[in-house]
């Protein structure tokens, strides 16, 4: 048995030795730190709705941004700044614009150089404005409402397409598909969510559809969250449109399409414009029967890019899905890294200037080199996909085509 008197001096001795050792180690290491001059990390705001009604999209957004930071740092950080590493300052907009704006204030306090986010249009509208007050560059990852880049905010840069561009492409493509099939579809019904994104898209669609000869039978709006689409689907059943066009977020999109199956409602096409779940590997995996045949005009990667399969594999090996929320943020973060590289500075105004003249081309999107005009990337465009045999295939344009479109869809 150990004697108490003996034990305590032994511990003191050990502590003394350890202290001496660590002091020695610190003295030895100190010159290395001075010599290496490791630059300070660059703080980057990563702001998304990771809780609340939009969490299902906000979480992969954050994962995309964080994986990009991981890759950028692993590739040596920002080389023009001595290999400075990026450091994420995480923010949660809780699916509410006002919370998003207050998160920007916190990020400003934390000294972020720039912000990437904030997924939903209504949240982006608030966060870009809040960031503008502090002169923080804000890269909009998704936020499709065109108002976001049309308010003259110098700090706001949207890498992806806005809903006007997407709607125009979608309507043109629908017209071509329908004409090639002998014009079987004549009527459409729009189902949209109630916030800025859904309402704005629905208004654009209602304006565009008649110019291509389609009659808009009805426009139905719903809340977020909605957990019962029976009434809406019964209306679809009564109206019996040739095409149903949903514009809503993941949960509601998935439920709408599933309820349509339950109620045995099968139009010629479920033709989505920025559909929340339409071109989503998670939806296709979880509900293959409901997903098959769905067409979507949405953010999509360049299917010819050689880096995509490896990236997708990495995401899936971590239990995630390679959804547009993920790769839009992954690319947006690389866009920021590219701007930092050229700015050679983490000053907010220098980053904004670098983004204004950005020609970032080393990415996986089908956009070509970036060219920002009033904060909008001019080359940004959506691709048209269709779920075929439980996989998502690009059907339009020809240069990226992976499969021939099936229209009208035979359920």
């Amino acid at each position, binding site marked *: 048995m150990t004697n108490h008197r003996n034990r305590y001096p032994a511990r003191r001795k050990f502590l003394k030795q350890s202290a001496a050792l660590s002091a020695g180690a610190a003295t030895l290491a100190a010159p290395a730190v001075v010599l290496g001059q490791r630059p300070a990390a660059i703080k980057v705001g990563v702001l998304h709705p990771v809780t609340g009604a939009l969490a299902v999209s906000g979480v992969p957004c954050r994962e995309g941004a964080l994986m990009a930071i991981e890759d950028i740092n692993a590739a040596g950080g920002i080389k023009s700044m001595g290999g400075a590493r990026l450091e994420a300052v995480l923010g949660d907009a809780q699916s509410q614009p006002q919370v998003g704006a207050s998160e920007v204030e916190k990020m400003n306090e934390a000294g972020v150089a720039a912000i990437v986010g904030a997924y939903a249009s209504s949240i982006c509208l608030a966060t870009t404005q809040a960031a503008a007050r502090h002169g923080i560059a804000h890269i909009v990852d998704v936020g499709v409402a065109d108002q976001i880049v049309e308010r003259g905010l110098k700090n706001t840069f949207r890498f992806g397409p806005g809903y006007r561009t997407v709607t125009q492409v979608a309507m043109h493509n629908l017209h071509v598909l329908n004409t090639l099939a002998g014009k079987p579809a004549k009527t459409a019904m729009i189902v949209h969510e109630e916030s800025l994104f859904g309402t704005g898209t629905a208004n654009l669609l209602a304006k565009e559809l008649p110019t291509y000869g389609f009659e808009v039978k009805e426009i139905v*709006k719903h809340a977020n969250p909605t957990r019962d689409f*029976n*009434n809406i689907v*019964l*209306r679809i059943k009564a109206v019996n449109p040739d095409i149903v066009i949903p514009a809503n977020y993941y949960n509601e999109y998935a439920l709408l399409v*599933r309820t349509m199956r*339950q109620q045995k409602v099968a139009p010629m096409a479920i033709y989505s414009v920025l559909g929340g779940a339409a071109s989503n590997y998670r939806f296709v995996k979880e509900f293959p029967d409901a997903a098959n045949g769905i067409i979507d005009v949405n953010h999509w990667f360049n299917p010819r890019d050689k880096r995509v399969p490896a990236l997708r594999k990495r995401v899936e090996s971590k239990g995630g899905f390679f959804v547009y929320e993920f790769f839009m943020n992954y690319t947006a973060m690389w866009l920021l890294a590219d701007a930092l590289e050229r700015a050679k500075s983490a000053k907010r105004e220098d980053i904004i200037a670098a983004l204004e003249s950005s020609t970032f081309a080393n990415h996986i999107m089908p956009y070509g080199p970036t060219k920002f005009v009033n904060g909008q990337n001019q080359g940004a465009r959506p691709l048209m996909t269709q779920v075929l045999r439980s996989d998502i295939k690009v059907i339009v344009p020809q240069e990226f085509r992976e499969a021939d479109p099936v229209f009208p869809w035979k359920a």
Partner: protein
Amino acid sequence: MLELSILWPSIANGLATGAIYALVALGLTLIYGVLHIINFAHGAALMVALYGVQLLFTRFGVDPYAAIVVLVPAMFGFGYVLQRFVIARASHGKDENILLVTLGIAIVLENLALVLFTADTRTIETRWSLATIDIAGAFIAVPKAVAFVGALAAAAILLALMARTDLGRAIRALARQRHGAKLVGIDVEHVFAMSFGIGLACLGAAACFLLPAYYVNPTVGNGFVLVAFTIVVLGGMGSFAGALVGGLLIGVVESVSGLYLGESLGQIGIFVIFLLVLMFRPTGLFGSKA
């Protein structure tokens, strides 16, 4: 003009939703009828029960319907303890205090849920989530059909409990004449707590039937409690038959007005009926004159 062929499916759907409303309202009317407590924490308690079902399903793989055997006793115990040791003690028998105490409990529960589960909307997917049954041309989702049958069965059990058992008689005696009940030897504190417990046990059952076709988040109860109060007033304060019929009626009205007026305006129908009842039959459909 919309076809009549879709009216029946909408009514059938409304009946299924209405049965859940009825179950929530039954608990509320019991608590109100006996204790004269306007229980603002009713929605929050439903939310607690829904999280209970969700956790049992995701963590332990317990089927939501099998979870009834856990949730009903658990919610009963929660209600009993809440009434006996929190509401009764903190309110000192004053109605205005009771209002504040139940409101306080609701705020605490909701924020606790926010801390524990975040603001996420959670759902559960079961094997039969997508299945439907054809009832005279209306395709009703299986979870909704089960909810309808289950909620009616639970309501029947509650009604039998109130009509046939000593406890039911004691509860009814207390509702009528508190002092008289005390004089004949009824343990008032205990029966009060039992009533509150049974009221919350109804929510436990409602949660098990509701979640497979619905969702849970920290504020999910608010929508239900507003509708449940409407049903209680519509059916007649403290009337069980009123809550049952009122619940089904409100479910149908909400569904049909949602169909014809659009989802956003759907709830207007509920409040139009509510106003009409208040104007022409202020005691409610089954309420007796005070």
